[in-house]
């Protein structure tokens, strides 16, 4: 049955996330926008609370599901599970501050990759830790298959060499999940992910970026200089897969996280709309949903256009891709990827 409202079972979560956004993130939002690269210590308490809540509330987890659970959920039909819960949380938190949400301790993107392919033994070792993700290189951005960082087996270790940029939380995380190729001549199938401890001497911080926005979140650039990791740190199978099969797993991480990126835009865009609505009200401007745009002031017409764009993004761009575990019958990566560009528009208009 078609229903686009937030389900009742997630209302508590949405409410809690909103409270945290309003009372923890908003008060320190400007502070860490100015003090770029300064660690927001206030988040430690919040992260602890979230960890406890997660433990108590089994249904909610900010990580993305494994392939197996996605398949199971698809068979079960619409369950409004973990992906939708995460998304609702992300939207609310980003209403508070997107940079602070991104740098929430232990909520890093790397856990998505770990959960997607880790063995039980690896989950035991790495689960629950703050894990960043290192994919992008100076010459490989959206074309992830062009990765040049290499991993060579040497005894019981892999030796990693290369350069990684744009690593979110790279300076603050405990672990960095590094994408590297076992054999550059093979292409996508040889790309594997490796868990590197942040204090590994071969992992050298080059610099932290100075950015336009999301400044509370650190963005690190690394050089991997003969960086040795135990061979048990290769996530998933060390076999070089056929190109399509191997890379599909890698891309699944993207498909699972793209709705979250859209959710961030939806959250911060709602914050902008909420504030604009308050300011219009203070200015004595009344917004009507009855009268046509042409019968209202230019300011109201523009507000309604923005709100309509947001409404579309709020209920579609972000939530619809949650299909793999939320409302799904036939999620396809192609459909998922279609979503993201639109969610950036209301924030940029």
């Amino acid at each position, binding site marked *: 049955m078609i*229903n686009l409202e937030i*389900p009742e079972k997630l209302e508590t979560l949405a409410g809690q996330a909103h409270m945290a956004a309003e009372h923890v993130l908003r008060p320190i939002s400007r502070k860490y926008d100015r003090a770029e690269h300064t660690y927001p210590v206030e988040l430690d308490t919040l992260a602890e609370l979230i960890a406890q809540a997660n433990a108590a509330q089994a249904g909610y987890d900010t990580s993305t599901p494994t392939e197996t659970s996605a398949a199971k959920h698809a068979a079960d039909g619409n369950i*409004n599970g973990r992906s939708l819960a995460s998304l609702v949380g992300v939207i609310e938190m980003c209403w508070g501050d997107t940079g602070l949400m991104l740098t929430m301790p232990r909520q890093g993107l790397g856990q998505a990759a770990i959960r997607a392919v880790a063995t039980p033994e690896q989950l035991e070792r790495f689960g629950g830790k703050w894990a960043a993700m290192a994919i992008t290189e100076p010459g490989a951005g959206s074309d992830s298959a062009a990765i040049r960082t290499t991993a060579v087996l040497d005894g019981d270790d892999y030796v990693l060499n290369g350069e990684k940029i744009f690593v979110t939380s790279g300076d603050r995380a405990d672990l960095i999940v590094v994408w590297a190729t076992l054999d550059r001549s093979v292409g996508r199938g040889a790309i594997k992910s490796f868990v590197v401890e942040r204090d590994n001497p071969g992992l050298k911080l080059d610099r932290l970026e100075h950015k336009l926005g999301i400044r509370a979140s650190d963005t690190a650039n690394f050089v991997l200089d003969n960086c040795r990791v135990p061979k048990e740190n290769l996530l998933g199978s060390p076999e070089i897969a056929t190109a399509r099969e191997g890379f599909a797993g890698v891309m699944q991480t993207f498909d699972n996280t793209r709705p979250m990126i859209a959710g961030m835009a939806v959250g911060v865009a709602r914050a902008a709309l909420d504030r604009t609505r308050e300011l219009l009200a203070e200015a004595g401007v009344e917004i009507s*949903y*009855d009268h*046509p745009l042409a019968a209202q002031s230019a300011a109201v017409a523009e507000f309604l256009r923005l709100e309509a764009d947001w*409404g579309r993004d709020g209920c579609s761009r972000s939530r619809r891709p949650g299909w793999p575990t939320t409302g799904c019958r036939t999620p396809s990566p192609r459909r998922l990827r279609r979503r993201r560009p639109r969610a950036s528009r209301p924030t940029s208009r």
Partner: protein
Amino acid sequence: MSAETHRSGPSRQTTAVPGAAFDLTPTDEQRMLVDAVRDFALNRVRPAALAADAACQTPPALLATAAELGLTTIGVPEPLGGVLEHRATVTAALIAEALAEGDMGVALACLAPAGVATALGLWGDADQQGAHMPAFVDDAPPAAAIAIAEPRVLFDPFTLHTRATRTPAGDFVLDGAKALVPRAAGAELLVVAAELDAAPALFLVEGATAGVSAEPEPAMGVRAAATGSVSFENVKLPASALLGDSDPQVYRELVALGRIGWCALAIGTCQAVLDYVSGYVNERVAFGEPIATRQSVAFMVANIAIELDGLRLVTQRAAALAETGRDFVREAALARVLAARHAMQIGSAGVQLLGGHGYTKEHPVERWYRDLRAAGMIEGALAL
């Protein structure tokens, strides 16, 4: 006239129970019905659309099949011959969408009477339902429509120039004019919006009433709906003609249900555009390869898909709120804002992607462009 004066009150559909989960999947019943309507739309309506557009008329055979499919009875309460216990705005939206994939003008011609039946089901008293509803569950439902739009620039449905005045006897006199009324010339029953006591109110007006006259008014688009103007000159209406007790909330909801209807029609036609151009840009070869390989072409098609999906979901959100008895006026307004901007853009992109071919009547995209122009423009005419 209040319901208490009757031995038995009016019949109503109950509001649907809100879904517990966030869900984008139609029910099995909805899917079956929509499949049947889409089959009719693509195999019967689409081939007849060009001629219907030129003739400014929907062939009677298509109207008859639409009636057989039960499209007029979605909003009719069970005791009055309907088949659905609950309000079914989402189902109605899905049907409008499927039908408009065939042709928006034909869809409007088929669905305008359903809007009147829905209004009677929602707000008619027992006498009004008894007098008018049987015709809508008949094999051949009458031409009927909701007449809100008026012939002037910057029309606002909450500032009406059509006026009703009370007579000392408690009856009404109606004066004014309506525009873009579907199947106006043959309309047997209209729901007319008019100002009464400085607020909008709704009146049931039979086409044959003295002082009512209709003229064909072919428009840029939705021509198969045979739109026309209707004028009311000193039209005397009995007290029983007032629909919904002049409750301002009734009028707000009717306007909003009309907006959802236009959005649903726009979605169907936009889907037709998307499917048509997707095939075309992959087959049309220029400079040795399909034009789809050009980014400027591929991005246009992708943007059509993105905006269409967004419009569909906001519209469905409004419809789901409406059928479950929650406030939906805001969502309907936002859906309309999207339709006004993006549906029109999609129609234009459909023409552009076909180049010079798109401008000719060899391809349907020029008609879809003209039809989509109506989606964010016309108020009323139908309601879901």
